[in-house]
């Protein structure tokens, strides 16, 4: 016989949960007491519940395991909402346990009561309100099952305080299996459709492979690489898919979309076949949907049927897990690729030479006037890439710095690039990096941020001191909400309405006050040396914050022309468009 609080913790242990990110409060006191009386599940005390969700998220994105969060009712639960929405938009497995007021007080506007199931409904994959302690094991089992299978996502478990009461003891047994009659994630793709796709690949003249975050989430990167190598087609990744295909590979054209490379967007626009894998034709990718890739037939592989034909009509839909679909495709390609004719290979070579022409545009070249000594944000990212040999985990916040990181730090492996692509949550970067560092204490974890975003969760520097998390924070400090300012430059005649970051703190002094190490860099010729020290063996175990003063006038390019532009309509630099 156990109390509900103990049952909850035992259930988490059964799910092999090693970290819970949370913050205590009245409604979860029984649960915190149960946590105190065990030592298998490690609790990480954050400074704000939003950070708990982003830490769990970073943990989940880097490991592939579900992230677990524990918050109290009312403000604890509402503070977690942004992080739940962030995870939902990017299909990240997460289980959020929220305390609730006592059952008999629900609906009476009692102290710290909020309808968490209601508030979170549109941003969760599913949610549970626990009615009795006996139900906890099955609900936890279901929560983890739902969060991690099919298209992953966050699940909320709301537990009224009386359910975890230490004096009410009930039988405990953890279920070994779970089955939900109304939930059966796709097991494999339709073989007929897969065969159809193979014959289209065989006959394509100007093909493109467009792979997104689903490949990473579904652990399909290796299979994707095998497929791409076999067919020799050009490959592009979405912002969420970076690392799914090695970015330094010659078949890789870079990221596509609003801030995609010239060659990736041009190749998409002119291709005659798209193999889309684990991508969702987001509006930040397609630009104007009616003008999207006018000559392309589309094969769309996705685990979520609702993602298929949602934004763009598809010729061959394949619903299934990437691993199973790509394995099947690879087997068929292995057997059938010998049937490719010389003519077809010649056409592919012509396609590649057209692409090489686009590559010559060198759209990511960094511009610099002779007498300009300011650090360009792109150069800062390139310097970080060199200092880390391209092997760091990199999280970002949201803004120009995020796009510079995506474009100038090529990722060769999946799960190393961690950013809030779908919701675009400023404040994500630092706590997400902390979650990654928790999961991989020996690895180098870098948070590339901006002076605006970092201040949205900067209180977590304290958590970093408490747990000794040696995250390396690279602050691309342009003294402005750069991305907002860029849009104002381009669309509002440069009227910078509230995009100026005034009264910035002395970041070095601030991080030092938390016991960390800070550097301020404003000259390009210092950057290399400072970064060498930041990533040196000597500072391996220290959080280091590098406040890099960057040129505030730089825009992110390429950038899609909007509204009414197609994939090929881009600004290539200030005032210069395709």
């Amino acid at each position, binding site marked *: 016989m156990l109390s509900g609080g103990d049952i909850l913790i035992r259930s988490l242990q059964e799910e092999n949960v090693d970290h819970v990110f949370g913050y205590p409060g009245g409604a979860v006191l029984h649960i915190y007491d149960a946590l105190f009386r065990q030592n298998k599940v490690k609790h990480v005390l954050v400074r704000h519940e939003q950070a708990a969700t982003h830490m769990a998220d970073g943990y989940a994105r880097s490991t592939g395991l579900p992230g677990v969060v524990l918050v109290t009712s009312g403000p604890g639960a509402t503070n977690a909402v942004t992080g739940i929405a962030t995870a939902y938009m990017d299909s990240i497995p997460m289980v959020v346990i929220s305390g609730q007021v006592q059952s008999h007080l629900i609906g009476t506007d009692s102290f710290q009561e909020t309808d968490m*199931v*209601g508030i979170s*409904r*549109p941003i969760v*994959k*599913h*949610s549970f*309100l626990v009615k009795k302690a006996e139900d906890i094991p099955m609900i936890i089992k279901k929560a983890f099952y*739902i969060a991690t299978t099919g298209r992953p996502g966050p699940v909320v478990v709301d537990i009224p305080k009386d359910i975890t009461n230490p004096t009410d003891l009930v039988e405990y047994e953890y279920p070994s299996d779970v089955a*939900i*009659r*109304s*939930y059966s994630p796709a097991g494999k793709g339709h073989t007929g459709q897969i065969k159809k796709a193979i014959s289209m690949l065989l006959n394509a003249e100007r093909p493109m492979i467009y792979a997104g975050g689903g490949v990473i989430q579904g652990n399909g990167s290796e299979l994707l690489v095998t497929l791409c190598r076999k067919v020799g087609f050009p490959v592009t990744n979405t912002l969420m898919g970076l690392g799914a295909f090695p970015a330094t590979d010659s078949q890789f054209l870079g990221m596509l979309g609003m801030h995609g490379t010239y060659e990736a967007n041009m190749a998409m626009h002119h291709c005659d076949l798209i193999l889309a894998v684990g991508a969702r034709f987001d509006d930040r990718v397609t630009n104007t949907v009616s003008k999207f890739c006018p000559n392309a037939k589309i094969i769309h592989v996705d685990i*979520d*049927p*609702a993602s298929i*034909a*949602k934004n763009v009509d598809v010729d061959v839909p394949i619903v299934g897990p990437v691993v199973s679909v790509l394995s099947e495709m690879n087997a068929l390609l292995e057997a059938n690729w010998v049937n490719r004719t010389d003519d077809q290979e010649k056409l592919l070579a012509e396609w590649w030479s057209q692409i090489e022409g686009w590559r010559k545009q060198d759209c990511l070249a960094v511009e610099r006037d002779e007498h300009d000594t300011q650090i360009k944000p792109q150069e800062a990212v390139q310097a970080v890439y060199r200092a880390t040999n391209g092997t760091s985990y990199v999280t970002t916040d949201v803004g120009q710095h995020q796009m510079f990181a995506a474009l100038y730090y090529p990722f060769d492996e999946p799960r190393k690039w961690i950013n809030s692509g779908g919701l675009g949550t400023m404040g994500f970067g630092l706590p997400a990096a902390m979650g990654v560092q928790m999961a991989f204490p020996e690895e180098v974890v870098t948070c590339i941020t901006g002076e605006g975003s970092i201040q949205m969760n900067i209180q977590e520097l304290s958590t970093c001191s408490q747990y000794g998390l040696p995250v390396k924070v690279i602050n691309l400090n342009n003294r402005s909400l750069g991305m907002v300012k860029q849009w104002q430059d381009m669309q509002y005649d440069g009227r910078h309405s509230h995009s100026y970051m005034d009264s910035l703190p002395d970041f070095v002094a601030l991080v030092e006050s938390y016991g960390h190490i800070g550097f301020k860099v404003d000259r390009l010729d210092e950057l290399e040396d400072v970064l060498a020290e930041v990533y040196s063996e000597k500072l391996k175990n220290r959080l280091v914050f590098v406040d890099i003063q960057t040129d505030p006038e730089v825009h992110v390019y390429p950038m899609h022309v909007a509204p009414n532009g197609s994939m090929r309509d881009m600004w290539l630099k200030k005032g210069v468009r395709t």
Partner: protein
Amino acid sequence: MRRIISVLIENEAGALSRVIGLFAQRNYNIESLTVAPTEDETLSRLTLTTEASDKQVEQITKQLNKLIEVVKLVDLTDGEHIERELMLIKLKAAGAQRAEIKRTADIFRGQIVDVTNATYTIQLTGTTEKLDAFLRSMADSTIMEVVRSGVSGLSRGEKILAL
């Protein structure tokens, strides 16, 4: 096009709010909605009508299917089906009007289910169009109150929506 979507959902607290929330969240419209438990007490059957293009209805059914508590669903308007709606209507009925109203109700196979010396309450079942037609045949000034159940429906023939 008008669609009738019939959904079996788990008979659990919160399941209905997820369905309704989905429509609000994704900007789909609901014209009518009716829900009640079925012969299997673990299931509720929900019928809703919506105005949607083929593409929209494909998204609606896919998104509904993604809800964990949705067990099964069918777009009844995909095939031959029977649809019925119940309407109760309270009318001013005095003097010469009484006979006229009674005659019209008979033509529509309505039943008078409550009578006072100044009112009739009529019960009518049928398709939405039939109920609309009856309402049009009553002078506006006589209609005191109308309540409609929303559409329920089944596929014709052998086809069923069940576990």
